[in-house]
């Protein structure tokens, strides 16, 4: 995949403009503007602006296609802006902003990536800030400092970030590695999930190990599960609804969200609505609606009257 920015060209001083319908073949321009409908082939440019419908392919084969409004300016201080529907090639930019339907082909490195609408990326994304509102489908890995989803995000490889704030749903096929994870909705992580702090309001499905110092799980609606859970402080409670209708529904017992796991190990563990084969720790509280195969504790064990604990051992 050619780096889009390889063809930033300092020599070009010319601007080209298509108003209405037109075509440009070849040439070396500083900027190209298409107002209406136009196609640019085999031309190098530093920036391109399309209003209407157009496409531009540079001498390296990188293509920009826009139906609506689009702007691409190459270079580390440059940007990609698509409003409407379109696609652009990857590269290094300052900002990438997609509203509508946008597709990025190739790896992207930028400071600020924001997509509202539908966004698809065929490569890896590395961005300082990343904000998705709507739907995003990323085929590669995601590396971000601040990652925010308000909608649905699907990441086919693994994700590393500092802060992950997810409101809606996220599906990461491999692993998630972060400092702080806050989920309000549903999350699916194929591999391991590691963080300093993990807080979930909703439901999650983790294929591997959930490993964090502070784990706070508020169970809502559907079942949550993780193969194993390990950390320092682990708290699992049934989510308390504050709004009337939902509170009434949960009081009916229609939704009784459970956490299912094979193993929970930590220092201080407080559980509710949890089914686990083994729970090990220092001080453990087994609350209501729990079903545990074996509890091993070094400090204290508190059990609620309805908790089912098959075997308990003080070590």
């Amino acid at each position, binding site marked *: 995949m050619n780096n889009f920015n390889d063809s930033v060209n300092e020599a070009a001083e010319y601007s080209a403009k298509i108003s209405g319908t037109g075509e440009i073949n070849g040439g070396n321009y500083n900027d190209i503007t298409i107002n209406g409908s136009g196609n640019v082939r085999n031309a190098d440019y530093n920036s391109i602006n399309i209003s209407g419908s157009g496409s531009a392919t540079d001498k390296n084969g990188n293509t920009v296609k826009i139906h609506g409004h689009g702007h691409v300016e190459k270079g580390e201080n440059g940007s990609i802006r698509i409003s409407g529907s379109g696609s652009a090639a990857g590269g290094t930019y300052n900002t990438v902003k997609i509203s509508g339907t946008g597709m990025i082909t190739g790896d992207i490195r930028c400071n600020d990536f924001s997509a509202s609408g539908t966004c698809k990326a065929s490569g890896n994304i590395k961005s300082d800030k990343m904000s998705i509102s709507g739907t995003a489908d990323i085929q590669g890995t995601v590396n971000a400092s601040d990652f925010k989803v308000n909608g649905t995000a699907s990441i086919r490889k693994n994700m590393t970030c500092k802060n992950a704030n997810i409101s809606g749903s996220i599906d990461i096929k491999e692993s998630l590695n972060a400092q702080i994870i806050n989920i309000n909705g549903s999350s699916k992580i194929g591999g391991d999930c*590691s963080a300093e702090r993990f807080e979930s309001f909703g439901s999650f499905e983790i294929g591997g190990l959930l*490993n*964090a*110092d502070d784990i706070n799980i508020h169970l809502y609606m559907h079942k949550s599960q993780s193969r194993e859970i*390990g*950390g*320092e*402080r682990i708290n699992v409670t049934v989510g308390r609804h504050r709004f009337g209708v939902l509170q009434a529904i949960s009081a009916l017992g229609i939704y009784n969200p459970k956490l299912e796991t*094979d*193993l929970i*190990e*930590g*220092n201080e563990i407080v559980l509710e609505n949890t089914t686990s*084969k*083994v729970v*090990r*720790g*220092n001080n453990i509280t087994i609350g209501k609606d729990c079903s545990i*195969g*074996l509890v*091993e504790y070094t400090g204290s064990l508190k059990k609620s009257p309805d908790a089912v604990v098959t075997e308990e051992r003080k*070590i």
Partner: protein
Amino acid sequence: MNNDDIISKKDLLELTDISYGQLYRWKRKGLIPEEWFIRKSTFTGQETFFPKAQVLARIEKIKNMKEDISLDELADVFSPAVDSVSLAANELVKRNIVIPGLLEQYQEFRHNNEPLDFNDILALYILNKLIDSGKISLDEGRLMIEVLNEGMIKFNSEPCELLLMRKLGVFSCLLISPPCKLYPDKGIRIIEKISIPTAIEELKVKLV
């Protein structure tokens, strides 16, 4: 791996007096490699075991060092990645990795003034230790460096050991990749055995 070589997670925590929280944190930071977590089926279900000697040694080191350097820096110390560390020559002297005279000799020997990469620094560090302790001479050191550099390329960063020996006053050395058994002839005196992974760890602490 027989049962004497491995230790269960539970026994490990008890023996080393660390908590689940600490173990999981150290695993997350890469201080205890993923490969050391061995899952086996026992009659109680799935349990985790560790290679006993290695994990005990590692946990001792972590406990000793964690007050002085951060967990992230500690992770670099233990990581097998011998990566893009390149230091200016004067830094090496400042950090007590090599004595000044020796550094000059080494630069002459290399015939160039390129910045030293990690492998160069490692070779220098080991050379310095040996010369400083009087175990080998500078000439012998040159042979040692050749064997070390070429051997490590051949072994592709596998853990290996440097064996220095003398027979009838003639110096020689070997780079071996354990585990292997050796039976030298009676005329050979083994001067020194240096574990390369240990030397790398010591060096990384100095480079932090």
